[in-house]
Structure formats: structure tokens, C-alpha cells
């Protein structure tokens, strides 16, 4: 395309608004996507860790509220023996008092005296994820050999986590669609405003024999460049913020946000400015093409 014929853009609003709208939208979309993916990753990690473990509760008090110390220790021994010989169980350990204390901190605080509470003893069971045990069989064996023991497979939790993770992904996709639709609508508006301002020049160029394709491509490339510039600015502002948040969460959290973004997911965030730029090109092309139909 002849550079000298870049006459169409002497005046018009697209110069200023288009890059900034793209920058803003890419910034918001990148943050939303990073937040969504990161939360999804964390939920998936939880799901995985929950799916790979079982908990067996051994009651330490009977139904009348009397301590059953010796009976409880015997139940624990029986349960451990059963678990360690069950196919699919890779390990089973009884949580000690310190671990129980740590587990209860979120609910009871650090100074709670657990000895005064009728808490059951907990056995943490690790499961071979590839060949998990048959839960119904394990439940029946436990009921037979350790009456009163409760097997918690976290299934309710697991179902909720899967739903939450999927809902999070759907939310990210919905937000992205909304943002891209907003960008497209803004480009249509800006392009139409520019075309109306330049209608005199356009009609002249049309009259001089310019093909519709020549004019539409000219505008589309122009807006592509502006959108690319804005999108890159949006990305360049968003990415360091996301990196900062990720590092901050990693420093304050032990587990919840440890997963963060995978390397490929970091790269995928760069698809947002690229998609915005391509969207700007296609939307401008279509808008100009329609506008030109008003000329014979």
C-alpha cells in the first residue's frame, strides 16, 4: 500500500480513543483471566490433594460421654492394620496432638486446649491415585473390624470443588466475551464516527476510483496498529501487577495460592492483546465495508 496515500486519517477520533480503550480492556481482561486461571489452578490442586487422601475418625468418647482410652487405642491399631493391608492405600498415619492443634487453629484459635474437647482421633490415609481402594469395601471392612469408626472420603467437598472450579472457568470466559464485545462495540462506534467526519474525503477517494477493498484495508490496518499499541500497553501494565500479586501471595500463603500460573498459562495471557488486535482489524474492516455501501 502506498504510504503517500495515507490521507484518510488527517482528522478523526480514532487517533486518541482507540489505543486507550484497547489498553483498558486488555488490562482488565488480563487481570480477570490471570485471577480466574489462578483460582482454577488452586481449586484443581485442592481437588487433587483431597482426592488422594481419606480420613478415618476413631471416636475417643462413647455415646454416654465417657472416655474410651484403651478401646480407642485398640481401634486405632486395628484400623491401621486394616488400612495398611488394603490394596490402593499407600500409607496411613495417626495425627499427633501437635498436628491436631494445627488443624483446629482456624476454628478454635492457637490457645485452645484440645484435651478438654471430645475430639476423635484422626488417621490420615494416603491413596494411590492410579489404583484407588474400593471405598464401599473399605467402609464395610472398617465397620466389621472397628465398629464406630467413620471413613470420610471428602466426596461432598470434591463435588463442590469441581463445581466451583468449572464455575470459575465459565466466569472467566463470560468476562472475556463481555470485554471483547465491549471492544468490538467501541471500535464500531469510533470507526463510524471517524468515517462520518471523513465522509467528504471518502466520497472523493471513491469517486477517483478507489476500490472498496483498498479503503477498508487502509482503515483496518490503521486501527490494527492503534489497537496493537494500546493492547501492548494494557498487557505491559497488567503483567507486572499479576507477577507482583503472585509473589505476594506466595510469600504469605502456604498452600492456597501456591499453584499460581503455569508457564504456558503466562504465555496464554499474551493471546489477549493479540486477539484484541485481530478483533480491531476485523471489526473495522466490516464497519467500513458497510459504510461504503452508501456510495453508488
Amino acid at each position: 500500500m502506498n504510504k503517500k496515500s495515507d490521507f484518510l486519517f488527517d482528522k478523526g477520533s480514532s487517533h486518541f480513543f482507540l489505543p486507550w480503550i484497547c489498553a483498558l480492556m486488555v488490562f482488565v481482561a488480563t487481570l480477570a483471566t490471570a485471577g480466574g486461571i489462578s483460582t482454577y489452578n488452586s481449586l484443581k490442586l485442592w481437588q487433587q490433594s483431597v482426592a488422594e487422601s481419606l480420613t478415618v475418625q476413631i471416636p475417643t468418647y462413647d455415646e454416654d460421654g465417657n472416655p474410651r482410652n484403651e478401646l480407642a487405642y485398640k481401634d486405632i491399631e486395628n484400623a491401621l492394620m486394616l488400612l495398611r493391608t488394603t490394596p490402593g492405600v499407600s500409607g496411613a498415619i495417626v495425627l499427633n496432638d501437635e498436628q491436631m492443634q494445627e488443624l483446629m487453629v482456624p476454628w478454635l484459635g492457637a490457645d485452645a486446649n484440645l484435651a478438654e474437647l471430645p475430639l476423635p482421633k484422626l488417621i490420615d490415609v494416603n491413596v494411590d491415585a492410579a489404583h484407588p481402594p474400593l471405598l464401599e469395601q473399605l467402609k464395610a471392612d472398617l465397620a466389621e473390624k472397628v465398629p464406630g469408626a467413620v471413613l470420610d472420603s471428602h466426596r461432598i467437598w470434591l463435588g463442590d470443588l469441581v463445581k466451583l472450579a468449572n464455575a470459575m472457568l465459565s466466569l472467566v470466559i463470560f468476562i472475556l466475551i463481555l470485554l471483547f464485545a465491549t471492544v468490538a462495540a467501541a471500535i464500531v462506534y469510533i470507526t463510524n464516527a471517524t468515517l462520518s467526519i471523513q465522509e467528504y474525503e471518502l466520497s472523493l477517494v471513491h469517486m477517483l476510483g478507489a476500490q472498496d477493498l483498498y479503503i477498508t484495508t487502509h482503515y483496518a490496518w490503521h486501527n490494527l496498529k492503534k489497537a496493537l499499541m494500546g493492547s501492548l500497553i494494557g498487557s505491559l501494565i497488567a503483567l507486572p501487577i499479576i507477577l507482583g500479586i503472585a509473589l505476594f501471595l506466595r510469600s504469605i500463603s502456604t498452600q492456597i495460592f501456591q499453584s499460581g500460573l503455569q508457564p504456558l498459562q503466562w504465555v496464554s495471557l499474551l493471546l489477549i492483546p493479540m486477539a484484541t488486535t485481530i478483533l480491531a482489524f476485523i471489526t473495522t474492516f466490516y464497519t467500513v465495508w458497510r459504510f461504503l455501501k452508501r456510495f453508488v
Partner: protein
Amino acid sequence: MSIKENLSPYLAEFNGVSLRYNKGPEILKDINFQLKPRMFYFMTGESGAGKTSLLSLLYLHLEPTKGRVRLFGQAIDMMSRSTKAQIRRQIGVVFQDYRLFHHLNAFDNVALPLRLAGEKESDIRKHVSELLAWVGLEKQMKSFPEELSGGEQQRIAIARAVIHKPTLLLADEPTGNVDDAMAKRLMYLFLELNKLGTTVVVATHNAGLVKNFHFPQLHLAGGHLKEIPAAESYTEMASKIFKREEDHE
């Protein structure tokens, strides 16, 4: 896509053409005429007679409300937009109100048709400079339209219309804002183009111009068109004019 070969003996044919704007009265009524290749025509008529509208139909700015217009052998209602664009490139138009690009200087305004046609920049520089010198604007090449007089703007508009040596040149009152000497000079530019094969249609209500040059007339009155043949044979008259020009020089 290229324009089909013109098998018609005419450059333009109007059959039963009428034109009205929206729901207003008919500006042009049942117009029938043909433009022959390599001819020179005057389009005459009072102001408001419809000369500009008829020219607009010829350069594909408007479509008739009735009848059929054929350009370069093809009916315009059957043409693709791409073909229409190609046909427009074969037509040069001088507008009454010049219609220059106000943010482009004289040189770039004139160069525009060549740039749209994808000509080489070195060729563009050569041809545009020569033509601007010919119309006496070699010192105003870098000037913008606002910095030029009406007559100078008109000469830029004419230069832009002829720079690509169009097959059909349509000029709407091209000498309206220039003095007699320049008007004559511009007419000789049109004649020179005509001699090279361009069909020229000059719309004017300058009776003196029409009287001096004796070309066939397309006369508009009351929306109707009447063809008035040249007073003497076209060839004789054209050769006389060129002889006068040579004697003058």
C-alpha cells in the same frame, strides 16, 4: 477483475433516463443520447437545468430512477462495485466546487489518482510536476488549497482530473473562475487531451466559449435534453482551432 471489452460503438448511452432526488420533482426526464469516442461536447443549459446531475450519472455518483445508463458498453445497474471503481478510474472529473483535499498540498492533490492506480513514485513526481508547470502552478506545488485563489484551485482540480489521461473527461464549469486567457489555455489543454483520444464533455453556460469552439452541444432545458450538432464538421473545426493555436504561438 477487469472491465469487459467495450463492444458498443459508444462510450456512454442513455436510454429513457430520468432522475429525481428522493420524492422531489424529476430533474431529468426521459434523456436519450450517446457519447461517441474521441469527441468533444459542450453541455449547455441555464443554471439549475440539471447539468451537474447529468454529469453525476456519467461519473457513477448517482443512479437513474428510470431508464438505463450504459458506460463503456456495460449497463451500470449490472456492474459490480469493483467494475464501477475501475470505470471511475477511466473518467476524469472537474467539479464546479473543485472538491480538493484540504489537508493535501497542490502536488499531492494532483498525484492522488496516480497513487490510487499504484503508479511508481518517481513517475508520479515527473508527471505531476510537468502538468502543474503547464497550468502555471509550478511555484505553488507545496501550497495548500486554502492558500490559493479560486482560479488556482480550479487549475489544481483540472490537473487532478487529467493527470491519468482519462478516456472520458467531464468538466463542470471548468473556466468559471479564471480569466479569459487562462480559460483559453485550459480549453487548449482539453483539446490536446481530446486529440490524444479522450472524450471531453464540458458543462458550461458561458455562451462565448460555446460560440468560439463550435462543438456539438447537449442542451438541457426543463429536464429534457436536446442534441445540437456542431455548426461545421468536427474534424474541420478541430483542425482550425489547432491551427489558430499554432499561429498564436
